[in-house]
């Protein structure tokens, strides 16, 4: 009986030692596993965002089509038609800017920014981008952080200037919008203006979806690479086992 007990104790000690070896191996593999898990998590997150954004896009487009149909109903079918489209040489009033962005584990990725209502003649940005740039520049100045009474008047002056800038930008955006609407006549239905706003919102969503898609594809690449490495490792292991047998 004692011999049996001793044997069982020895085997327990051996199994503990084996467990310890496995743990050290796992610790060595952990950084790789964590990276893979992070990639998988990022990928699943972007897939979820992608699907949610597409739902939002479907709703916005539906609204736009409805308003376009209403405008067509009030203005007449012949007044909202592709036959009226401007086929003369002109550049897009709304365009995109493609930058590079470092996205953590995945590395450098292209990032698309929407440039709404940029002037076609000078190539100068009129829309939100210009206004945001100005705000960023002014908020970056250290003077705004001082809370002296003497600076308060300066700050008030600056905020009024900002409002003026915003009004100028708004005015120019309105001009660009009217210019696009003028394709379908000078007096257009308010529904057509609403349709224009809906499609502008859809455009913002589309840019977001495009960025999500890029993020999704790059994390998908990483996940795929990781799974291929694991599966090839498994294949090699299986082949070795086969040869041993």
């Amino acid at each position: 009986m004692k011999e049996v007990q001793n044997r069982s104790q020895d085997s327990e000690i051996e199994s503990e030692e084996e467990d310890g070896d496995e743990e050290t191996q796992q610790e060595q593999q952990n950084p790789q596993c964590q990276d893979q898990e992070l990639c998988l998590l990022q990928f699943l997150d972007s897939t979820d965002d992608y699907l949610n954004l597409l739902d939002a896009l479907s709703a916005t487009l539906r609204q736009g089509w409805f308003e376009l149909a209403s405008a067509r109903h009030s203005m007449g079918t012949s007044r909202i038609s592709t036959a009226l489209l401007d086929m003369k040489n002109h550049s897009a009033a709304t365009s995109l800017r493609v930058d590079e962005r470092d996205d953590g584990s995945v590395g450098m990725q292209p990032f698309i920014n929407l440039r709404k209502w940029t002037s076609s003649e000078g190539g100068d940005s009129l829309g939100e981008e210009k206004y945001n740039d100005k705000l960023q520049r002014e908020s970056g100045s250290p003077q705004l952080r001082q809370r002296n009474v003497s600076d308060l008047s300066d700050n008030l002056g600056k905020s009024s200037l900002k409002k003026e800038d915003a009004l100028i930008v708004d005015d120019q955006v309105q001009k660009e919008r009217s210019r696009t609407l003028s394709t379908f006549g000078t007096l257009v239905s308010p529904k057509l203006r609403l349709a224009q706003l809906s499609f502008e919102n859809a455009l913002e969503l589309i840019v977001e979806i495009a960025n999500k898609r890029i993020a999704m594809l790059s994390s998908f690449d990483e996940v795929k690479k990781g799974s291929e490495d694991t599966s090839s490792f498994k294949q090699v292991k299986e082949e070795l086992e086969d040869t041993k047998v």
Partner: protein
Amino acid sequence: MAGKAQIPTKNSALISMIADEDTVVGFLLAGVGNVDLRRKTNYLIVDSKTTVKQIEDAFKEFTTREDIAIVMISQYVANMIRFLVDSYNKPIPAILEIPSKDHPYDPAHDSVLSRVKNLFSTESVASGRY
């Protein structure tokens, strides 16, 4: 899938469309329409008379043009040239399948999501990992 070649950064890139009349008119109202000196547009209006060849040519042209960053294509139109859409794998221009008036968006047909589905199904069969 998303090629890791040099990323082309552009200051002013276009959005192109291959879609039905109402979708194209709507986005033109939002100011994305562009006509160059050779009277080439950045959109194709698909109706009952449009042939698959025309759609294929437009898709190839928009995906090879350097001044385009996003190609929007109605999902039902993408289904007509599925082999081309599925074989496209560059990050820029990004291909987006959008719903159309008569055909709601179906995630099962989306080229990106179907690739994902394929990977996960083969993985689960091969290793039971996911």
